[in-house]
């Protein structure tokens, strides 16, 4: 449960970050001013596996690259909210937010009496509106589709859910075709134009002509249609360069650089093993720090120093020494706890919060977001791929 004042901090802080990420991406794929001005190291961008040279000079509507962003926020021991990471590729989990709320309303309606909880059920409408706003110029009634890898993807449930909530077709790559640099979907009535793709597949699968040749999930020629401005892809191609754990460390400085503001939501202080001092400090304090590989998602490869065995620490040391640029370290953040039902008893469990920011012409933040909970006693790993759960999250009026 979040008070209006706490929410105001998270909301405005998230909007500030999304603005910065969008400015950063427009800069990276445009004039590259932040790099020329020495704010952001060039190799962090150009050697990043998620940097897409295909995007250089390609204009996206509203200059919006990150239409849907999940900002992972935690509350430390001092009560302050800090950002753990940004998710600017295709953050998932919003279906749980809506389903958790509906479940709570059905099973415990009395809890809501007189509480003035801000609604989350209009997420689909808001997302659809934002995606329409991001349609190519001159399209008045855009056809939006959700591009999914298909029923065998672990998030397929969410894809079905979102397509239903937005009232749009749920498509796979094979349902679409590019002709004369325009995108169409195959319908019983023939080919119908498609203007906006809300995609839930990674960049490298989007177009076998440009990225992975063996991709069966994408549409050959999609990048040609994209480059011509005939279709909007949301999130844009190449956003992964901005939500990288290495670039993350520079976000507060980039907020200052682009917006001339201080970060409303600060970062967890981050040591970059790519830098000499950061590497030395990390190796000297492995048992006190949390170390993370830069290129991984879903909590994989995270080592929590104070809880790791000597053997694990030694393995981590070797891994870092082998490829220092791939690692960062952070002090251990004592995640706040939330009362959680464990086997019939209420016990404290660590949580984090992922608010969802939806951007078309402007940014809207879903009031609440996905609260993830580490169900194992004492665990700080909340990722659902690692056995985490989720909770309904209330923002009060």
């Amino acid at each position, binding site marked *: 449960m979040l008070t209006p004042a706490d929410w105001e901090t998270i909301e405005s802080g998230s909007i500030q970050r999304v603005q910065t990420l969008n400015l950063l991406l427009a800069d990276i794929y445009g004039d590259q001013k932040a790099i020329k001005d020495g704010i952001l190291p060039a190799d962090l961008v150009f050697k990043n596996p998620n940097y897409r040279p295909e995007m250089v000079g390609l204009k996206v509507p509203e200059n919006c690259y990150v239409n849907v962003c999940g900002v992972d926020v935690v509350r430390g021991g001092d009560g302050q909210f800090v950002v753990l990471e940004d998710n600017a590729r295709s953050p998932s989990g919003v279906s749980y937010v809506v389903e958790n709320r509906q479940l709570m309303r059905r099973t415990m309606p009395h809890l809501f009496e007189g509480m003035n909880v801000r609604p989350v059920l209009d997420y689909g409408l808001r997302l659809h509106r934002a995606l329409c706003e991001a349609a190519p110029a001159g399209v008045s009634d855009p056809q939006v589709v959700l591009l999914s890898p298909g*029923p065998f993807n672990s998030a397929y449930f969410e894809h*079905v859910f979102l*397509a*239903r909530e937005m009232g749009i*077709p*749920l*498509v*796979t790559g*094979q*349902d679409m*075709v590019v*002709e004369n640099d325009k995108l*169409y*979907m*195959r*319908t*019983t*009535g*023939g*080919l*119908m*134009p498609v203007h906006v793709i809300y995609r839930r597949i990674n960049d490298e699968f989007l177009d076998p002509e440009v990225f992975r040749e063996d991709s069966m999930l994408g549409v050959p020629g999609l990048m040609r249609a994209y480059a011509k401005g005939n279709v909007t892809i949301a999130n844009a191609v190449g956003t992964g360069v901005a939500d990288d754990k290495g670039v993350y460390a520079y976000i507060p400085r980039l907020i200052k650089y682009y917006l001339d503001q201080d970060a409303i939501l600060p970062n967890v202080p981050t040591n970059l093993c790519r830098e000499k001092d950061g590497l030395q400090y990390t190796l000297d304090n492995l048992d006190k720090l949390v170390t993370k590989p830069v290129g991984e998602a879903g909590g994989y490869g995270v080592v929590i120093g104070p809880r790791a065995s000597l053997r694990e620490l030694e393995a981590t040391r070797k891994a870092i020494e082998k490829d220092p640029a791939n690692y960062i370290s952070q002090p251990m953040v004592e995640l706040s706890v939330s009362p959680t039902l464990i086997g019939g008893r209420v016990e404290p469990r660590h949580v984090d919060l992922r608010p969802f920011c939806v951007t078309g012409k402007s940014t809207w933040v879903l009031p609440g977001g996905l609260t993830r909970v580490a169900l194992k006693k004492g665990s700080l790993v909340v990722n659902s791929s690692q056995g985490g759960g989720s909770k309904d999250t209330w923002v009060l009026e």
Partner: protein
Amino acid sequence: MLSRYAENVYWLGRYIERAENLARLLDTHGSFARDPRATGDWEAVIRINADEELFFSRNKEATAAAVLYFYLIDPKSPTSTLNSVGYARENARTVRHLISTELWAHLNTFYGEMHELRRRDIGLARLAKVAAFIKTNCQTHTGIAEGTLYRDQAYRFYQLGRHVERADQTSRLLDVKYRQLQSVEEDPGSPIDISQWNALLRSAAGYQAYRRTRPGSMSTSDVARFLMSDSEFPRSICFCLYRIKYDLACLESEHGLELGDEVRETLGRVMEISGQTPTDRIEPAWLHQFADAIQDGLLGLSGALVSRFFGVAEAAE
């Protein structure tokens, strides 16, 4: 509507219809086989489905137990009822947003129950029970579909699949059973003859209607004509073809889809074949050719539907 979805609902309709007809066929065959004067020709069931190669690659002999296992619960047999229901469920899963929750929930349960069946549940002694179980579930599915499906394009394609499959299955049933019936017609009115054409009509749920509309007639030719060309009987080939024509017309008039020449021509051809039923005695050889021609015609129609609605459509503009 997305082509892929149309194809999914089309196959949902086909697979459920296939499961129901297979249950009918096995049931009636089982009751034929139990008559000590008849031969328990289980190989006929394999022939009807053109499964000889697959079946005999795994079995030496077409015993009742082997055939029933193969057609009811064999997970490795693509034509088993278990797999038909499984494929229906997979197709339904992809179009869950187009069908009602009730339709999905029932199909899911049905598949679960099919999965529970073991060899001991499907022996000849329990065949009537298990066939009734399958038929009842297919009919429950049909009832839920009738009562809950939104009448959009998806519904029309679902009905198309259902009637294409039903026409095909009736032609197969007729072909194989008619040969068996004909072999004993030399002695018309013998107890075995009557019981067998009774069983054939019953397997198609047409016994009452046949007796009512053709009192006094007992000839196998009349039974065949009834299953081929009665315009009111919902499992006759003729009836199914008119339903297909109707659903295609709805897609054209209500949903603005153009049928195209290939669909029109293939439908026309199969309707023409179905209209050529002789008025006198029907020979088994003729009927076999007729059934083959109907099956070929339906294959052509199905192919035309694929290229017109489910496959690669031509460019817009």
